[in-house]
């Protein structure tokens, strides 16, 4: 177990949340006597992650991703179950453990707002007691990879969101952590900057062999970085494996997008015979067909309709994920109201 970067066994986190009823009378009653309800944010999660892996955490809002990440980073005490990260119990928050991890939260800053970036870096150098030579080497490295040169002397408040995120990531890596917990690191960034951050994380992982755990709402992040994905829903593990396996397992269909050339009043009728019409308007149609029938369907469309353009696509991974949630709900009959997630 000590060879693993992260290991959890039946990890659970239960929050007690106050139950509030609407209305003044009920609010007054709750002043005197609060009734609470258990919410299982993480519910029996067992994981093992090897050193050097980049793993993506997927799940809808409130699935328990952030709660899991916070338990791994030692910020939350598990309700039950076991966690070890690099052989340490995170919630003890031993300095030897904290020196080896880092946490980046896309929505929260740790840089000092009013002072130049370089001074914030200096601050973290002191807190982590990084020797001056090692610090300079790491900083040069990060600065060239992330192109921080022009930003270093500016106060953080003058940076754009994307520039700030680059600096946030750099400041979180100055102590050369062995594990990176990245909670939505690309949130709110434009596509170019998202790509930039992704490329950096991949490069950092390659150079340092660091283990990366990433949550993101952007599938592109996960597709670009993570060979392995862990899908959780209502705090439970739904899928753990390669991203390609996830797509292969859960996507049974392909999508055919067609641009029609000119009028084709019978287009809808024709397409409905071929597959499931997702949309059809203004000469543009999207049809879903079973994977095995893709070739036949494509031939038939080309033969019967005036096609200007046609493309066959895998369904977006987002859709696949949605399908995963749907199929598991059907499979396990998981409609249990007690398994609500909480946001965060």
């Amino acid at each position, binding site marked *: 177990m000590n060879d693993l970067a992260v290991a959890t066994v039946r990890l659970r986190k239960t*929050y*007690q949340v106050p139950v509030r009823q609407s209305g003044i009378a009920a609010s007054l009653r709750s002043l005197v006597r609060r009734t609470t309800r258990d919410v299982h*944010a993480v519910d029996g999660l067992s994981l093992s992650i090897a050193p050097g892996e980049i793993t993506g955490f997927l799940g809808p809002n409130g699935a328990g991703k*952030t*709660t899991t990440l*916070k338990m791994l*980073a*030692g*910020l*939350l*005490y598990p309700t039950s179950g076991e966690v070890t990260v690099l052989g340490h119990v995170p*919630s003890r*928050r031993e*300095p*030897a*453990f*904290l*020196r080896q*991890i*880092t*946490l980046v*939260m896309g929505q*929260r*800053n*740790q840089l*000092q707002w*009013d*002072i*130049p970036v370089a*001074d914030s870096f*200096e*601050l973290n150098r*002191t*807190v*982590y007691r990084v020797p001056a030579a090692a610090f300079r080497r790491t900083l040069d490295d990060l600065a060239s990879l992330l192109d921080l040169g022009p930003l270093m002397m500016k*106060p953080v408040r003058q940076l754009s969101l994307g520039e700030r995120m680059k600096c946030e990531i750099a400041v979180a890596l100055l102590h050369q952590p062995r594990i990176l917990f990245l909670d939505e690191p690309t949130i709110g960034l434009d596509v170019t900057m998202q790509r930039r951050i992704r490329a950096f994380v991949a490069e950092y992982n390659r150079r340092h062999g660091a283990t990366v755990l990433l949550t993101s709402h952007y599938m592109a992040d996960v597709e670009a970085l993570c060979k392995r994905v862990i899908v959780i829903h209502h705090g439970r593990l739904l899928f753990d494996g390669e991203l390609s396996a996830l797509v292969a397992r859960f996507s049974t269909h392909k999508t055919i997008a067609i641009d029609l050339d000119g009028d084709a009043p019978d287009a809808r009728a024709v397409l409905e015979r071929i597959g499931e019409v997702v949309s059809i308007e203004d000469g543009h149609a999207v049809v879903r067909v079973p994977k095995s029938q893709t070739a036949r369907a494509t031939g038939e469309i080309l033969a019967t309709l005036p096609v200007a353009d046609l493309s066959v696509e895998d369904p977006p991974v987002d859709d696949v994920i949605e399908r995963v949630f749907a199929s598991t709900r059907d499979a396990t009959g998981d409609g249990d109201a007690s398994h609500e997630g*909480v*946001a*965060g």
Partner: protein
Amino acid sequence: MTIVRLLAVYLRVGILTELQYRANFYVQAFRSVLSLATGLAGLAVVFSHATTLAGWRPHELLAVLGVYLVISGVVRFAIQPAMERLMEDVREGTLDYVLTKPEDSLVLVSVRANAIWRLVDVVLGVAVVGYAVATSGGSLGAYEFAAFVVSLGAAVATIYGFLVILTTLSFWFTRVENILVIFQSMYEAGKWPVDIYPAWLRATLTFLVPVAFAVTVPAGALSGRATPLTLAATVAIAVVMVVAARRFWLVGLRRYSGASA
């Protein structure tokens, strides 16, 4: 030592930050002078009617005013900004960044913020205390001086512990700014020795809000009012406050890690 190292680096950040807002310096200097002037005016009014106030002679009351300025300067320079920052971090969830640092969390939150211009109060206060001692006629004995220094240190520790306890409440109630405002108002009473107040208020200012130990005792020490027993009690209270604050902080942290989403 870790604390000194961290203090130094955060002090540097504080200076860098404040240098960008130079207007603050003038505002602060004006406030400090104003506060000193009203204090002096109050003393002038009292001593135009009497030669002593509850046994305190003019230069002794001046020392009280000076100590009041020094302590409030230290509180506003270092302790209060750190506590305000802590409350903000609890509210916004950025405390997570403190808790993932390999340093003692209470030390880190205590040194993280400062407001250097508030040191103007400290400088003025020291000047006032110096003047009070110089005009007292007699020279300052070694015991008096030592008692003053020890009780001043104890005063800072006591108030620090007290404010940490108040601020830690934010783990439960999130919004505790109002409690700090109440503390500030009560602290204003420390401009005068607590002896002049009625018994109930004196008790409050001694045991509920430790103003007596923060201002009256150190100022009194200068004129030999601090018996070894008083001094021992002052130090003991400081130790109890700091230890209690630390314990309570750890309880608060457990709550934060147990319930925050």
